[in-house]
């Protein structure tokens, strides 16, 4: 764990007990997040990216989910905290934004009341001060005529405005860490870019650390300093965004980038990854991408490959690339 990291996740695993069996949603995720860093977690549905985020903030239902490994935030281990301590950290030092803004808001209270209430609860400010700060926050997230919007109910706002208001709510207690779970996925493309730019600007100004979960390569590219590509509950490649995008070092990342149609030429078939993601109830003790990988060999099926560094901060969970026997 480096000196300036504010979040340290070590061998995090999440299992869900269901009627059909045990779902291995997250299988050993480790990373450090530095102060002011933006980590993008890129993965498809079922890769465990959202579950990882929820495990960090302790949002998974304890009766179904068993969590292993350690999550240290600000020098304290999250899983050893009581519910009260966890609640104090959530909202104040770690905040989360979602794909669907309506889940963050109570439909029967105005946006201003809800932001002010959070400020009063966590900071003990007076109502009047809290309202003033709520207005400042709405201005910060570039909501026009912020003062008037304080009195608006969530459903009276358009999708993009709701998303901005949710960001304002998340920022209300100056969190050190912002967890973003696909916050732009439900938005139209012209609004999406506005929200991405807003988040980037706020992150720079406030010096927050951000973990941004997305399935969209373009969105991840726009927002991330560092990228982690997730597959079957594991990070399969991590590194600076520039390196991962320009020089993918895991066959899955490579396949994902070449199956996004931007790289394809019109009138030619796409370079698609065959097959489908593995069944999380029956993960093999092997490289989980091997059944779909065109470079797979016998050795890939003998145990889960380690996340091995290629350069100082670019790592891959591919045996052949890791041993320098494969150039992508």
């Amino acid at each position: 764990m480096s000196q300036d990291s504010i979040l340290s996740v070590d061998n995090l695993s999440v299992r869900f007990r269901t009627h059909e069996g045990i779902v291995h949603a997250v299988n050993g995720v480790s990373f450090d997040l530095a102060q002011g860093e933006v980590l993008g977690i890129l993965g498809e549905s079922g890769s465990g990216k959202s579950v990882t985020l929820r495990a960090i903030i302790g949002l998974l239902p304890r009766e179904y989910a068993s969590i292993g490994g350690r999550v240290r935030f600000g020098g304290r281990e999250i899983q050893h905290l009581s519910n009260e301590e966890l609640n104090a950290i959530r909202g104040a030092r770690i905040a989360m934004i979602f794909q669907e803004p309506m889940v963050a808001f109570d439909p029967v209270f105005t946006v201003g009341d809800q932001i002010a209430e959070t400020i009063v609860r966590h900071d003990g400010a007076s109502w009047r001060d809290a309202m003033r700060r709520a207005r400042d926050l709405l201005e910060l997230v570039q909501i026009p005529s912020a003062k008037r919007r304080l009195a608006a109910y969530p459903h009276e706002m358009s999708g993009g405005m709701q998303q901005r208001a949710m960001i304002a709510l998340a920022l209300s207690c100056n969190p050190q860490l912002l967890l973003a779970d696909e916050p732009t996925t439900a938005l139209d493309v012209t609004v999406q870019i506005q929200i991405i730019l807003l988040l980037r600007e706020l992150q720079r100004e406030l010096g927050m650390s951000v973990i941004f979960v997305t399935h969209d390569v373009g969105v991840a590219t726009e927002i991330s300093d560092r990228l982690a590509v997730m597959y079957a509950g594991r990070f399969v490649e991590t590194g600076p965004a520039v390196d991962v995008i320009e020089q993918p070092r895991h066959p899955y990342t490579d396949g994902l980038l070449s199956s996004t149609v931007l790289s394809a030429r019109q009138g030619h078939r796409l370079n698609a990854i065959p097959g489908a993601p593995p069944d999380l109830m029956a993960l093999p003790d092997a490289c989980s991408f091997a059944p779909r990988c065109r470079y797979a060999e016998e050795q890939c099926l003998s145990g889960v490959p380690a996340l091995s560094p290629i350069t100082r901060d670019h790592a891959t969970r591919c045996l052949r690339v890791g041993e320098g026997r494969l150039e992508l």
Partner: protein
Amino acid sequence: MVSKTDNTVIVVDPAEALRRARQGRGYWRRVWERLRGDWGTLSVIGIILLILLAAAFAPFVATHDPMQGSILGRLKGFGYNGHILGTDETGRDLFSRIVFGARLSLITGVLPVLFALVIGGFLGVVAGYFRGFPNSVIMRGVDVLYAFPSILLAIAITGMLGSGLTNTILALTITFIPPLVRISETVTSQVRSLDFVEAARSSGARPLTIIRFHILNNMLGPVLVYTTSLISISIILAAGLSFLGLGVTPPDAEWGLMLNNLRSAIWVNPVIAALPGVMIFITSMCFNLMSDGLRQAMDVRL
């Protein structure tokens, strides 16, 4: 020929898994599989079957003639002179009367619900599928019936038509039509708005074909669950009508009627007097529990 499948599933026994996959597990098979593990519901269904069998084979199950009274042996307790459950106010064997009474009680509990299911289901599907004018006519009509509480409606109809088995069934059928129209209409219009119905429409299919292939099999589960929950209400309502003298007439054995007749005996032999009531309670409870169990097995949200 394109040959790209995306089914990389890791399995324990490939041959067995393939065989299973090829068969495909339809909805009703999954319902049965879920039901098989639910011992509570299975035993409740067992009790219902037992009561049904006893009613069907009443002459063989009954120990005495249910109509044969005795001046001396009135309101006797359990086991008196070979009467397992004692005797009623005219000295008739109570066990035999309860067994025979099950016939009428079940008929008045189940038949009105079945009739109402057919009529209400039909109207509901029409209203839900065609929307617009047919919907307005049917649903406003139902609203009028809804304005009366169901027990009052049943009492009013039998009061008008006179007592007797046929009129009881008729009255209860009319009482249960509105809720069944409403649930069928709701479920139908939910199913109708799903994309597979649009897809069926855009293959040029006519409404009747779409209803037969795509609507009925999807609405059956929820409507059936609701229907079974109505049976318990119907049994209680029928018993209530008989109790008030508006249903089955003496000397026929029917639980509600028996309860009424034994009412005055509550101070002489309260256990005996309560027995028909206990049967009404057990039967309607069982139908209710079965309905809940089916709801879970069918994964229905009402």
